[in-house]
């Protein structure tokens, strides 16, 4: 492995693309679209290159030596503030078994979404420029290891999303975009506060022996780096770590979205164009759970350990509440949006298990939900492009009219239900096995299995309302899928089936990181206990 900055390339390639897109004259729509697809395709290739060069045995999480493809150099350095000393911010990228699946997922989903964006016809240039900017933001979040950098990418993703929903969205787009923006911004504020608190509580020793405050997440994970008087330092008897944890958790939970912070999601999904829904559900929601795993868990291990029951409880509420809400929907897209709420609940439940199977299941579920929900939103997009409505009750019998489409729908729906042989099953089963294996979350895991039943209920009901029964004559002229739609759904279906039959590679990818994480939390627990700060 050379020192080739592949992570920077994969992250900033879209920005380069955006600049080129901005230079292309407005009329050249085909060139703009083609360029975007090529760039996202290169991203997929780069992600695969990453995967091929990935060393499966390294754990990552809190040890810089076991991170891979590291790029680290001084980004911002300001000296001469007498009261805070030196400000030092690193440009620090790297991947481990936690972020690698997410990088893959982002590359794949963005690629599919860029194909799906082909039908955009309103100010094409602006759309694709925003799209590529969004891409950079998402990728950056998953590879950044410096909290400041992480936050920058986190915010970078927010703005294009606002415009993408607010300009290219449906009839209530302004409402949805503002709701999304304000909600996420609220979360960002909480994250920012905790970040600053952590900054003033933890110090890193530089090569020349001086100690400076740090934004480096890995340094924040080391309890030895905390200053005695820091507000979030475990050494400080009056520390605010608990409150900070809650704040950080809510900040990430809004993105998941966790009950009761989930209501931006249905609106954003319903109004967003198909490709943006795909990205929103496929990648953005994962940033919330990824953030919890990457930031909250290792930096606040002792509080994580204390709160597992509550995390699992919210997971359970998400699963069951989301399923019931989905059942009550009449809008196809809203139903899928609520099913996302339900499925992200499994991620929370698995995370709360704090054992290898549970967390592996959670990460796998993040990946699987990304691909499955991408499929589901593409499916809604296909029907919406043709019929221009999404009201479930106005369809019926499309299975006869559009057999190929119905075939893909069946695959996606059954994957969402968790049918064995498709990827959803593996991750849900692992989540349940993991959370049942933890004494604290056991009962919640058992209650959550109801979600499997409810999921089958609303999905099959939808299948029936739209595709089965006598054909509604109104739709007798609908065409089956065209090549572009086919090309989007085939790779996703292939992934869903492959990971359902043989999840081994993906689990192997994350295994040592998950083990490291579980071990770290166990150990940190006793360490913090010895500090007497609990």
């Amino acid at each position, binding site marked *: 492995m050379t020192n080739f900055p592949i992570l920077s390339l994969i992250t900033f390639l879209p920005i380069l693309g955006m600049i080129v897109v901005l230079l292309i004259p407005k009329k050249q729509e085909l060139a703009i679209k083609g360029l975007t697809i090529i760039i996202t395709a290169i991203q997929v290739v780069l992600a695969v290159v990453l995967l091929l060069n990935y060393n499966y045995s390294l754990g990552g999480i809190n040890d810089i030596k076991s991170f891979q493809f590291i790029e680290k150099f001084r980004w911002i350095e300001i000296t001469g503030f007498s009261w805070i000393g030196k400000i030092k911010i690193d440009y620090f990228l790297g991947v481990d078994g936690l972020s690698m699946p997410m990088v893959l997922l982002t590359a794949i989903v963005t690629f599919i979404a860029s194909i799906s964006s082909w039908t955009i016809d309103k100010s094409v240039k602006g759309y694709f420029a925003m799209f590529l900017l969004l891409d950079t933001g998402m990728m950056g979040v998953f590879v950044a290891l410096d909290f400041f950098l992480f936050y920058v990418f986190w915010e970078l993703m927010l703005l294009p999303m606002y415009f993408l929903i607010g300009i290219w969205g449906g009839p209530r787009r302004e409402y949805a975009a503002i*709701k999304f923006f*304000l*909600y996420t911004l609220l979360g960002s504020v909480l994250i920012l506060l905790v970040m600053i608190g952590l900054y003033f509580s933890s110090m890193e020793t530089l090569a020349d022996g001086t100690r400076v405050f740090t934004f480096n997440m890995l340094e924040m994970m080391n309890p030895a780096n905390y200053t005695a008087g820091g507000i979030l330092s475990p050494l400080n008897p009056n520390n605010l770590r608990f409150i900070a944890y809650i704040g950080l958790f809510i900040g990430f939970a809004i993105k998941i979205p966790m*009950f*009761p912070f*989930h*209501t*931006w999601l249905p609106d954003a999904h319903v109004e967003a164009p198909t490709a943006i829904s795909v990205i929103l559900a496929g990648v953005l929601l994962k940033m919330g759970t990824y953030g919890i795993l990457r930031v909250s868990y290792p930096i606040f291990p002792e509080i994580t350990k204390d709160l597992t029951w509550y995390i699992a409880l919210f997971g359970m509420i998400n699963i069951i*509440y989301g399923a*019931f*809400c989905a*059942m*009550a*929907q009449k809008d196809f897209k809203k139903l899928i949006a609520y099913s996302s709420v339900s499925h992200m609940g499994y991620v929370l439940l698995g995370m709360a298990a704090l*054992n*290898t*199977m549970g967390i*592996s299941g959670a990460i796998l579920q993040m990946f699987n939900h990304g691909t499955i929900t991408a499929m589901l939103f593409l499916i809604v997009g296909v029907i919406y492009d043709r019929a221009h409505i999404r009201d479930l009750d106005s369809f019926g*019998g499309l*299975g*006869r009219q559009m057999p190929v489409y119905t075939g893909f729908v069946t695959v996606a729906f*059954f994957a969402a239900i968790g*049918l*064995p*042989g498709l990827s959803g*099953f593996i991750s849900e*089963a692992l989540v*349940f*096995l993991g959370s*049942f*294996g933890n004494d604290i979350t056991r009962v919640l*895991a*058992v209650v959550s*299995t*109801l979600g*499997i*039943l*409810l999921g*089958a*209920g*609303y999905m*099959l*009901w939808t*299948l*029936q309302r739209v*595709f*089965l*029964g*006598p*054909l509604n004559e109104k739709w007798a002229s609908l065409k089956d899928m065209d090549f572009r739609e086919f090309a989007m759904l085939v790779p996703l279906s292939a992934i869903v089936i492959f990971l359902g039959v*043989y*999840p*081994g590679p993906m*689990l*192997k990818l994350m*295994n040592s990181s998950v*083990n490291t994480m*579980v*071990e770290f939390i*166990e150990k940190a627990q006793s360490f913090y206990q010895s500090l007497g700060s609990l």
Partner: protein
Amino acid sequence: MDSQFLINTSLYVLFLPLLGFVVTLLLSKKVKSVYLFENLVLILTFIASVFILYNKLAIFSDTKIVSDVEWFSFPNTPIFGDISIKLGIMIDNITAMMLFVVALISMLVHLYSIAYMKGDERYNRYFAYLGIFTFSMNGIVLTHNILMMYIFWELVGLSSYLLIGFWFEKKSAADAGKKAFIVNRIGDLGMFAGILILFFTYRTFSFSEIFASIEAGILPFNSTFWLGITGILLFGGAIGKSAQFPLHVWLPDAMEGPTPVSALIHAATMVAAGVYLVIRIFGLLTADAMLFIAVIGMISSFIPATIALTQNDIKKVLAYSTISQLGYMIMALGVGAYQFAFFHLVTHAFFKAALFLGSGSVIHAMHHEQDIRYMGGLRKKMPLTYWTFVISSLAIAGIPLTSGFLSKDGILASSLAFANLTGHWLFPVTGFLVALLTAFYMFRLIIITFHGEPRDHHKFEYAHESPFVMVMPLIVLAVLSIFIWYTPNPFNADQGWVLSKWIEKPVLHTPVETRFDFMKPDSENFSHNNEHIIYSSTYSEAMHHAHYPAMFISLFVALSGILLAFVFYHWKKVDVDTLTEKVKPLYNFSFNKWYFDEFYDKTFVSGTLMLSKALGWFDLKVIDGIVDGAAAATKSLSFFVGNFDKIVIDGLVNLTAYLSGFFGLLFRRIQTGKVQTYIVLVIFSIVILLFIFR
């Protein structure tokens, strides 16, 4: 020959149908005759299964052939250590026999369907679905671990869903498919919970490893109570799949699927998977769990038998009879008659498949008329169908010389022996009552359908015997319903090769104190710790005593059932209509299937829907209302602040300006612009000032 060779062959049995599914589905539009490929694949599968059956029973009769590969693993986990999740195949005699049954009936149904489904617009896709069903069913049969069983369990659920809803343009068919899947999922939840407990306790899914751990004294949550609960939870899967009370409601609706599908999936194989599951987990069942299973089986055998008495749809009658017979098997397992349960599974698979395919033949001939009230007199038109139907009905009624007599008699005798040993007399009483009802409703069906005068002459005119590919399976299955294949003695199967050689005696691994008394090893065996002996000598004694009484009673009730049917419907000695009028409430109760569907609709279904509506409302109005409310509050606050700024702060500024303007206006009056006035004013002012400052 190496036993590994059988594993390889079993892989063919497993994956050939999958290949058939994939090829047939992908080419279903392009190649019109791709269904022939699927049929060829099934014939090969059948040949392979015969090969396995022969080799297993003849050569490896006493060995369990096991082979597994790692599916995925979690090495070095901090809490659980190394975890490896395996895919594996286990072939014992029961596997081999079950595989044969599935492959045979599946092949016959494939061939039968060539004619039956002719002209359907999704002809090829139908065969593809049959292919994935056969694949998943073989998976259930072959697996050596509970997780894989659950996986294939769900996959048969999928294929059942696809096939029940095959004619999805019909709303009732689409509904039935959905109902089947969801009701099955309820049972599967229990099974999944059981799997969770097993994995948590034993860190493995493999049956044999779990059994070994139980014998080593490891129990879930360290209590025998939880072992029993685990057994009952796992049995939940069987309640769903085998359509046992209270989840039996899906099976009659599943008759919306094509009739060959009903024969294959909803009579012979898939619904028997529940029984097969209980057979596989038999080793971990405690006495409490077994009693629970027996009670469920008893209820499930009785309720559908009473419903079948009044149904007019030929397939519905058979569906209820299927539930009832499955109830027998489940009850048999509950009372410890493991061998008879599996024996009945096999015999039932043959004769019930024959009955369903026979009914399909009738329906085919009657141009998709399923109501027996429009049939009659078909005996002469369709002799082969008639005679195979009669043989199968005799088998299900339990008349000697048929296979059904042997297996059913065994179950009844076991329940009698069980009652003798434990005092639960309700089991044999219900068992005999159900036998009576079974004989009665089956012959009611035969008499109304095949005997008497035709009621719909138009349809009767066009009725004809079915083509060879449809009749051939009937003959094969009817022939397999004769005793000779199972035992040389038509009155006692005990000496036959099936019971004495083929079906292994069960092995119980549960702690001795949790077993029924008659399942505790005798003291001399106990010291040897011979695990293969689970029955005490008192049990074989009780069985011996129960044998003849059970045989005579069952023969008596079966014959009287048939006789009653003839009295009622053939000779018409009793007017059925007046009798019906007399017991109208009972008749309605039976005709309306004990109102189970209505009850479930009113409670669970509408309850769930109402809850979902309520939560949807809650989400939209309350949660989102809070969000929107917060937004509105912020908005009104900012509106207020804005107005404050505009009115108060800016108002003060404006007021100042206004006041100066006002006074300006006021003083402007004085400013006449006339110098003289000013002078006067000045002078007056001076004068006034002079007075003041004087």
